[in-house]
């Protein structure tokens, strides 16, 4: 998939990705020549088709996690299927001593299916550490979802 700016005859560069949380995806591309922007909008079916390929529009910002497709897609998965998804790990910081979780963020994390909670928490924790963020809040989670393309997380 490539987007070509016809007047400039240049490939448009990926600029940003947004995941509103309703299964849709917005990806913004910019022409390096004229600066014109365009947005790719996908409906939930199209978003699911792309995620089923295990790829991310705009490229990967975090390395693929082991079995991330199954873990994020299986609706009938057991909460304790993976050692890092055990419910009791939800209250422990992903990176002890470096990142705190606000009460609101913990509450939101608790709504993530237990099957994937450990993996999601680790990803948010690594996101915060890499950016020097001391506390994970719902706003940080929203930004991470957009930046990392964490559909449905």
């Amino acid at each position, binding site marked *: *998939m*490539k*987007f*070509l700016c*016809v007047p400039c*005859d240049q*490939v*448009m*560069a*990926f600029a940003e990705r947004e995941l509103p949380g309703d*299964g849709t995806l917005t*990806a913004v*591309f910019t022409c390096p020549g004229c600066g014109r922007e365009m947005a790719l909008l996908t*409906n*939930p*079916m199209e*978003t*699911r*088709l792309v995620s*089923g*390929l*295990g*790829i*991310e*529009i*705009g*490229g*990967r910002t975090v390395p*693929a996690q*082991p*079995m*991330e*497709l*199954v873990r*994020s*897609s*299986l*609706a*009938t*998965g*057991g*909460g*304790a*299927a*993976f*050692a*890092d*998804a*055990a419910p009791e790990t939800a209250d422990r910081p992903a990176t002890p001593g470096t990142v705190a979780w606000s009460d609101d963020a913990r509450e939101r994390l608790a709504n993530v299916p237990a*099957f994937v909670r*450990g*993996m999601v928490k680790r990803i948010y924790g690594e996101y915060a550490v890499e950016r020097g963020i001391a506390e994970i809040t719902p706003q940080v989670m929203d930004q991470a979802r957009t930046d990392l393309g964490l559909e*449905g997380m």
Partner: protein
Amino acid sequence: MTRRVRSYHEVADPGAEDILAQVGDQGRRLAERLAQVGRVVAVGSGKGGVGKSAVAANVAAALAARGLRVGAADGDIHGPSLARMLGAERRPLAVGADGIEPAAGVAGVFVMSMDLLLESDDAPVRWREPAMGGFVWQSTLETGALRELLADVAWGPLDVLVVDLPPGSDKLERITGLLPRLDALALVTTPSEAARSVVARSARAAREAGIAEVGLVANMTAWRCPSCNAEHALYDADGARALAESAGLPIWAEIPFDPRLAAETDAGRPVVLAEPASAAARALIALAGRFA
């Protein structure tokens, strides 16, 4: 004047998302994982209900019983049964730096199956899905899940990886497209006339995929009466040979019907370990010997 816009292949820039590179990475990851495997052996069938998974479980167990390091991957995403047949318990799977640690089955077989990930024994494999269009993305998702079951599991070095395929010749084509290599394929069937076209279709798909070794495993060929010890054919007595000839395949095994095969294997005790002297077990052990 007609405006001409460059086509995909005329634009060398891969684009910011570089989807081909991401797909290439997936393939590399799978190839690297399988590079540690001596032989990749698939067990498939043209249609369901012929005992394919029981054959896969027993072949894996028989190979492990010979002292080989064996992995068993359940490619039957929607009908997983391999973990149960190999006695692997559902318990949290460790997530290590190299991937998901497989479960431990009988005789030390390493097992990975959707079975191990479900919330309960009776839970169906159901995906989080948008309200519409499941027919569009479901097949893609299943292939992705199969790729992860093979590539994201820390199998370690294996002598043999046994892959239990989902039934259907179309699934065979899907997995041969996914796997960088498949060393052998055992096609399981009952020796019935009704299976003739199904087996021929699968054999053709296997040949076209370039699989080096393909053989027929005729299951439930005959039944031995426990009272008089006489053997009775359950299908045409020459059915297996007729199937093999019409499909152009060698017969690798003829497994007689034995209630213990299903009963023991379903209980997590593959018959090759539980009743190794039985005729069914002997046939399965000999079949496994081909892949050692």
